[in-house]
């Protein structure tokens, strides 16, 4: 019965009151003409209330005429009448269209990209592959082919064994399986020597294959032969054999940096003037809302992102980006000698740190101060390091 009511509501119906002497005749004519009537209640001797469909009501006129009854509507019920109210409201219709358009649009784009399974260092690489194809937040799902994306990533990113690309809802899932780099093959039948990669004092010699030509405590020059690939037998009659020299030569090395001490130091000072620029961020695009062009020549910028967080810990890629820029002025500051030396030492150290190879450890630091020809003071910083200076070189026949 509920279904019938629902159907009637969707189709729409009218509650009518029929006045007249021969209501029975009216009902009979209606039923003969396939006009469905229901819930007929007699009100009094000359009137009855009943329900009829909209179509039925339209066809009722001849029946009413024939039976001499007067029909008038008491109430209009159902969805068609409900919707009719909105027919005149243009804004409502426009809103409906805009709403459905936004809904369709937002459902058909990628909102987020999730990369799993690989080392974090690889993510920028993967993202650059995606960016090259203009795939990112906001690209249309229909244009994306997971198989092609997977192929592209597998081809362009190194050390990837398998790539799975999946579009689930509005999210793009990329699963990476790293492959392990094959170890470097050491060909034992080819002769290789170990030579020094840089100058140093040998502290420790560990030879796995080959004949060591140096001892601990010796100083070596860059390019000097450390371990020979010719393995000599204890018995001279057997001669020598070519091997691939392997070993670790731990040596002390020195790195030095000299700099003139400058008494003048350029200091960056904030003037206290700030400028605020607000962007609206939608996916990866940003639109400026307030704040014009920056009026400063030199400035420092602190960026703050305020994103809308949705339910269930979801972070929506919609929000505001606030850029606070503060003006900076360069100022020349006169320093005392001690201050100037400290500053010079710091800069020299920084320069050195960039030069020192990653696998070496700093053991000691020496700072020297000397005067140059024209009176300027120089600072020399020397770092003493310990590192493996073994470098491979194919042995040439001598």
């Amino acid at each position, binding site marked *: 019965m509920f279904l019938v009511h629902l159907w009637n509501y969707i189709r729409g119906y009218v509650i009518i009151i029929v006045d007249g002497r021969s*209501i*029975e005749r009216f*009902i*009979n004519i*209606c*039923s*003969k003409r*396939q006009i*469905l*009537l*229901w*819930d*007929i*209640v*007699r009100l009094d001797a000359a009137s*009855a209330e*009943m329900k009829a469909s909209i179509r039925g009501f339209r066809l009722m006129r001849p029946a009413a005429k024939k039976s001499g009854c007067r029909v008038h509507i008491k109430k209009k019920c159902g969805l068609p009448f409900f919707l009719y109210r909105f027919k005149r409201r243009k804004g409502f219709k426009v809103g409906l269209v805009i709403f459905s358009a936004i809904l369709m649009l937002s459902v058909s784009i990628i909102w987020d990209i999730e990369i799993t399974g690989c080392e974090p260092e690889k993510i920028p690489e993967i993202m650059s592959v995606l960016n090259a194809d203009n795939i990112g937040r906001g690209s249309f799902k229909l244009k994306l082919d997971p198989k092609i994306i997977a192929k592209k990533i597998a081809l362009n990113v190194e050390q990837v064994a398998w790539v799975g690309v999946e579009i689930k809802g509005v999210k793009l899932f990329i699963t990476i399986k790293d492959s392990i780099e094959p170890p470097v093959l050491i060909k034992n039948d080819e002769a290789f020597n170990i030579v020094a990669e840089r100058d140093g004092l040998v502290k420790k010699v560990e030879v796995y294959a080959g004949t060591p030509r140096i001892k601990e405590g010796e100083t070596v020059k860059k390019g000097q032969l450390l371990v020979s690939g010719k393995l000599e037998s204890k018995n001279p009659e057997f001669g020598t054999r070519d091997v691939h020299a392997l070993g670790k030569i731990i040596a002390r090395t020195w790195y030095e940096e000299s700099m003139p001490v400058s008494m003048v130091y350029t200091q960056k000072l904030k003037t206290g003037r700030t400028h605020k620029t607000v962007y609206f961020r939608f996916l990866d695009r940003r639109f400026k809302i307030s704040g014009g062009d920056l009026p400063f020549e030199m400035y420092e910028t602190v960026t703050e992102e305020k994103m809308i967080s949705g339910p269930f810990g979801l972070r929506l890629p919609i929000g505001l980006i606030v850029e606070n820029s503060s003006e900076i002025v360069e100022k020349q500051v006169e320093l005392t000698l001690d201050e100037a030396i400290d500053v010079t030492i710091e800069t020299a150290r920084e320069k050195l740190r960039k030069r020192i190879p990653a696998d070496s450890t700093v053991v000691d630091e020496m700072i020297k101060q000397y005067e140059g020809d024209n009176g300027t003071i120089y600072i020399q910083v020397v770092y003493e390091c310990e590192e493996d200076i073994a470098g491979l070189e194919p042995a040439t026949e001598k």
Partner: protein
Amino acid sequence: MKRGIYRIKGAGNKGKEPGESLGERLARLFEIPGEVCGNRPKVTAIGRGEVLIENFKGIMDFQSNMIRINTNNGIIKVTGEGLNIREITNEEIIIGGKISNIDYDA
């Protein structure tokens, strides 16, 4: 369909006492329910509050305490309190309300 059959049969039976028509006899022969083949009314009373009458010809009287319905087998009179017609179509009528009597007028 039914109506067409009825008219052909009805023309022959006109004026006679209501008896078994050819259709009804055929129906009995083939053991088909009477309301399918003939135009005899089928009255179904569900509980006390609902009466369904199929194969009716038309309503003759409609009051809140009495409804008279014309059928091929005469007039069926339903009496009760607060009677209403739940639904009426070409072939069936559902009467609701507190029913006390279903009478067949001679």
